[in-house]
């Protein structure tokens, strides 16, 4: 070989190696295999993207890797720790094919320590963690049920851990061990971030004579000032601007639907998950808009999330600045439907929320709800601590 050819070959090899390394690096997933051929094929799959790009190359790489055995499972799991969900599915078809082979079972057992460590690692993306756990479960039926109990607070397994605590509490009740039952339900309540789980744990504790505050736990805003209904024909309500959007004056009266004079009223949402029913609180009506206003106080400035659901649509102003708006008629008020990051100021913060009411379906039996649910929490869904303020319209002109 000539010197120039040698150099060309040398540089080409380096170029290939660099391409592989950069592709793997770009996908944020270092390979755990020492075999460069495996790393290169994983990197080919990592390059699949939108519009079906890279699929035919991925198929070739996938088929080549499918001829390997369980020794590549750790590398596959590491490769799966990526936000490229298309690539993840390519890896997964490969993973499933390898683990389904009868001959692979013993070798899989040898990777148990890696699988367990991987499943434990909450820094990794959720789905491959579940896959690692499922593989242990496949060889050790019943493992998950006991392991999951310690995963309270885990972003992926936390829900199941709370469900486990709730089930353990129920079992303790059946065993007439109320001390243990209370302990399990308390634990479930403390770690629950899902509305249903919070309600369930709270109800169980109540039957055991222990009172907990689900509203505070979730950071639900339940004390409101309301005004409405404003006239908003058909589906114009989301775009129409009424006086409260320009200035909130709790002592003011406004011209409402059908020319009626409307003013702000105080309302406490007594629903156990803080859902505000505007039909009960404001009016049974259609093609209208209502506003809800609340003031809260926090000790220091902080970044939090406002999580809300409303029927219909939802627009939120924080301290006079619009922070969220979504036009979705018939969207339904569902727990944590919309999540928006916001920054609260130290001291007083004001929330103004606009909720529309759409036209009645031509069938009068079709329900037409009008409601709002709004809470303030951290990124993990735990309600933040705040103090509701009750502004006095006689001596305070809000905002």
């Amino acid at each position: 070989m000539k010197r120039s050819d040698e150099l060309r070959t040398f540089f080409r090899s380096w170029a290939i190696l660099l391409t592989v390394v950069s592709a793997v690096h770009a996908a944020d997933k270092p390979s755990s295999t020492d075999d460069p051929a495996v790393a290169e094929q994983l990197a080919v799959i990592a390059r699949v993207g939108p519009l079906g790009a890279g699929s035919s190359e991925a198929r070739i790489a996938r088929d080549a890797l499918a001829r390997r055995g369980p020794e590549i499972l750790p590398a596959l799991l590491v490769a799966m720790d990526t936000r490229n969900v298309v690539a993840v599915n390519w890896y997964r078809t490969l993973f499933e094919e390898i683990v389904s082979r009868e001959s692979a079972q013993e070798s899989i057992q040898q990777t148990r320590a890696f699988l367990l460590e991987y499943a434990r690692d909450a820094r990794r993306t959720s789905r491959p963690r579940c896959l690692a756990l499922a593989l242990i479960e496949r060889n050790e039926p019943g493992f998950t049920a006991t392991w999951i109990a310690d995963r309270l607070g885990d972003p992926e397994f936390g829900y199941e851990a709370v469900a486990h605590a709730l089930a353990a509490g129920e079992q303790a009740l059946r065993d007439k061990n109320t001390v243990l039952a209370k302990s399990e339900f308390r634990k479930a309540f403390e770690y629950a971030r899902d509305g249903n789980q919070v309600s369930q744990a709270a109800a169980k504790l109540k039957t055991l004579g222990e009172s907990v505050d689900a509203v505070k736990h979730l950071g639900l805003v339940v004390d409101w000032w309301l005004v409405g209904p404003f006239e908003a024909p058909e589906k114009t309500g989301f775009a129409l601007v009424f006086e409260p959007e320009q200035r909130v004056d709790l002592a003011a009266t406004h011209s409402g639907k059908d020319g009626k004079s409307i003013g702000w009223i105080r309302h406490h949402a007594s629903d156990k998950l803080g859902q505000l029913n505007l039909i009960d609180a404001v009016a049974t009506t259609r093609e209208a808009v209502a506003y809800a206003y609340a003031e809260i106080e926090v000790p220091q400035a902080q970044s939090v999330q406002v999580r809300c659901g409303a029927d219909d649509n939802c627009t939120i102003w924080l301290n006079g600045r619009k922070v969220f708006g979504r036009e979705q008629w018939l969207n339904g008020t569902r727990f944590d439907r919309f999540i928006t990051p916001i920054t609260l100021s130290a001291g007083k913060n004001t929330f103004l929320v606009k909720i529309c009411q759409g036209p009645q379906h031509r069938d009068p039996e079709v329900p037409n709800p009008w409601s709002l649910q709004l809470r303030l929490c951290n990124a993990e869904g735990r309600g933040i601590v705040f103090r509701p303020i009750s502004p006095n319209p006689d001596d305070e002109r809000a905002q």
Partner: protein
Amino acid sequence: MSSSIKLQSCLMLSLVIATATYVQAENWPGWRGPQRTGVTTDTGVPTTWSSTGNVLWKTSLPGTGISNPVVWQDRVFITAAEGRDQSELHVLCLDRDSGRIRWHQRLWGTAPTVFYYPKSGLASPSPLTDGERLWVFFGTGDVFCFDLDGGLLWQRALADEYGPFENRFAAASSPLLFQDTVILQCDHYGASYVIAIDGNTGANRWKSDRPEAWLSWSSPQLTQVDDRFELVLSGSEKLDGYNPVTGQRLWTVRGLVRECVPTPVLGAGLVFVVSGPNGAHLAVKPGGSGDVTETHVVWRNDRGTSFVPSPIVVGERYYLVDDKGIASCLSTSDGKLLWRKRLTGKFTASPVAADGKLFFTNESGSTLVLDAAADEYRELACNELGEDVYSSPAISQRRMFLRTTKHVVCIGTK
């Protein structure tokens, strides 16, 4: 008759029988069968069955779903979804004769949503095959293409590419095959669109935005006017015709109500569309351009419409059962009511027809068999399967394939 003539006659008869058998052994390649109308030329499907009688096999399914089984020769394809956020997706291939699982692919959905309808989960759209490839679409917005042995060929994560599906019950529209493109109607709260994807590569052929569209779970339909193909989309409050080659909108008919689920059906040169809960049935002459509401609506009937089940046309009759079980038969030519009857139970599944019979399956798994040749309501049988059914049946090769809430059940005679 000489022996040679006898032999010739026997051979001819054998050929006729063989040909007839071949012609009648039709596949069920996607949502609502070979023409997306619920009708097949297949014959010999049993008229009677029970939870055990005429049940050839029964195979358990993971998770939930209301996609209908798809049948191609000796393979049956079905989808399902499960998990707290329904992000665990399943694609299964069963053996037509035994129900044995030939392959089972497990995948993750790109944009899992907690906002799905418990009855259907995120596996509402039915699979689609051309005999070489299988395309599946899920409520997560993911489209997968496999070869018939289960090998992944490509995936599109539409929710990642064009925004998450914001839809009360998750996307439910079933893919349509036009030549070598897979067409998907993606109507939802967010930016709605219709997209044509190269069936071989997954690349876009075209994408047409539908900014005025809103919630809809209806599946696209294909019709032909002279030598022009038209893609027909039933969306909230209107019906649109598109050029399936370019994605250009051709015509619009107004007058539907919000939230359309049923798929338009074809017959007598017309497109029949059902318009949302308590809307109207419309018979529309395809073709034209622009707003053809005043010129192309042949008839309109404001009574007896369904929210979910699609209609079916057999001969000159148009049949529909609404969600509460009121069945109607209208004349295709003028929309006049021929008969109306309250059936037992509630309905989610759409009716199917074969061999001069109509099959209406209710949510309790009871299938009413009606005579499609009769001018009046004529019941032939009522078969109890003993399991809840929300999915529309498939008919292929003298068998019916019913997806219950737990199984795929194959009904036929041995």
